């Protein structure tokens, strides 16, 4: 047998076709899977959250807030008491016990934590000019409790995070799910925020008899943070200008008066 050297005519060991097209197909499949997972996680959490007993929520809250350096402020306690007196007898908040405090962080934010704890960041307190404005913010957080947003949010993020990590694996999941959680959660979260705004507004009007101070804080924040609409596409909160517009429209539609606000003492009374 004579040996005839011949070069390879075609490489059969390497599949033909574009790798980029492969990437597009796989990515689309993965995105579709993540969206489905998010919907399922949301559905699952939303239906289960109603069955979480308050005692378990308190336990969860205790674990979460145990290490928080929460300091009390009589101004906040006063506002909370005033708002608590206005809960409708049939709503979930009526029978709950709430706790409010400050943590020393420059961020302008306040959060509602499981177990009925409202945390106001010291950065936010510096920005607030009147008691009514602060009452609106506390009312907003109470709105999250009324709608059980604090639990659904935590549950959705947790479940989606765990499920996606199991499916995608640690390496892809860490970067992609952070983005998808935020993006997918954004519109749901914005709806929650708007609902909490409206709850806070109605509580403010009930407690103070007028809607003064409902939008002032947001106006100040909107002027300071002139971030574009693009950045707010994936933001967890609605654009401040949208919040102001919705609140103003509601005040107008309900015909609530807007009177003068009560000044907030500079430092907490001893």
């Amino acid at each position: 047998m004579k040996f005839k050297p011949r070069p390879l005519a075609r490489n059969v060991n390497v599949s033909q076709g574009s790798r980029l097209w492969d990437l597009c197909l796989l990515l689309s499949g993965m995105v579709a899977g993540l969206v489905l997972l998010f919907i399922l996680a949301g559905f699952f959490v939303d239906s289960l959250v109603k069955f979480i007993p308050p005692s378990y929520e308190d336990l969860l809250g205790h674990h979460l807030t145990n290490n928080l350096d929460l300091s009390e402020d009589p101004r906040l306690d006063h506002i909370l008491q005033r708002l608590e007196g206005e809960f409708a007898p049939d709503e979930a908040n009526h029978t709950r016990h709430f706790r409010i405090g400050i943590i020393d962080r420059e961020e302008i934010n306040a959060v509602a934590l499981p177990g009925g704890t409202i945390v106001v960041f010291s950065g936010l307190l510096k920005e607030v000019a009147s008691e009514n404005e602060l009452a609106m913010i506390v009312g907003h957080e109470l709105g999250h409790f009324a709608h059980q947003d604090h639990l659904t949010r935590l549950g959705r993020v947790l479940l989606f995070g765990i499920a996606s990590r199991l499916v995608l694996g640690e390496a892809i999941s860490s970067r992609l799910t952070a983005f998808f959680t935020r993006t997918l959660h954004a519109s749901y979260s914005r709806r929650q925020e708007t609902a909490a705004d409206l709850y806070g507004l109605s509580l403010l009007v009930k407690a103070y008899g007028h809607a003064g101070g409902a939008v002032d804080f947001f106006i100040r924040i909107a002027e300071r943070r002139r971030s574009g609409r693009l950045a707010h596409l994936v933001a967890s909160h609605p654009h401040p200008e949208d919040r102001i517009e919705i609140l103003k429209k509601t005040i107008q539609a309900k015909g609530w008066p807007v009177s003068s606000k009560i000044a907030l003492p500079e430092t907490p009374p001893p």
Partner: protein
Amino acid sequence: MIELIMQNVGLLTLLFLVTLGYTVGTLVEKRHYRSLMKREQALLTLPAVTIKHDQSVDEIRGSMMVSGSAVISIDYFKRFLARLRNIFGGRVKSYETLVDRSRREAILRMKASAPGAAIIVNMRLETAAIGNSANQKRMIGSVETLAYGTAIWLRTSPTSEAPLKI
């Protein structure tokens, strides 16, 4: 805009690494394939076969075990594509070129280590993954191929009268 970028720094890093891996990886791969084809053409007359015996003992002037090995690393794009493929299953096309290049390079290096030989018989190929946790974070993922065989120099070959020197 800056806020949006800051929020998605992780995703943008991933995009950057995948793009970098694709562009640089493709360039490197094309260059390697060009080099492989050129060298394969040059060494085409030296067959490397898997049969154990080719010539009668009388014809053999000398024989020696020769080997060649090559380690080829994956790029970020290939690794990303393979990870996605791991979810859905199917052919991991992105790794095919890697193994193919590594195998061909190893054979070429083996052939290059047997100058003047008439044939390489009993050729075997072994592959090994360097960095077993190739799919894990910050791990190096590479494939090594080792090609080895017995190079045979014949008495009847053009250089048969000269003493055998390797």
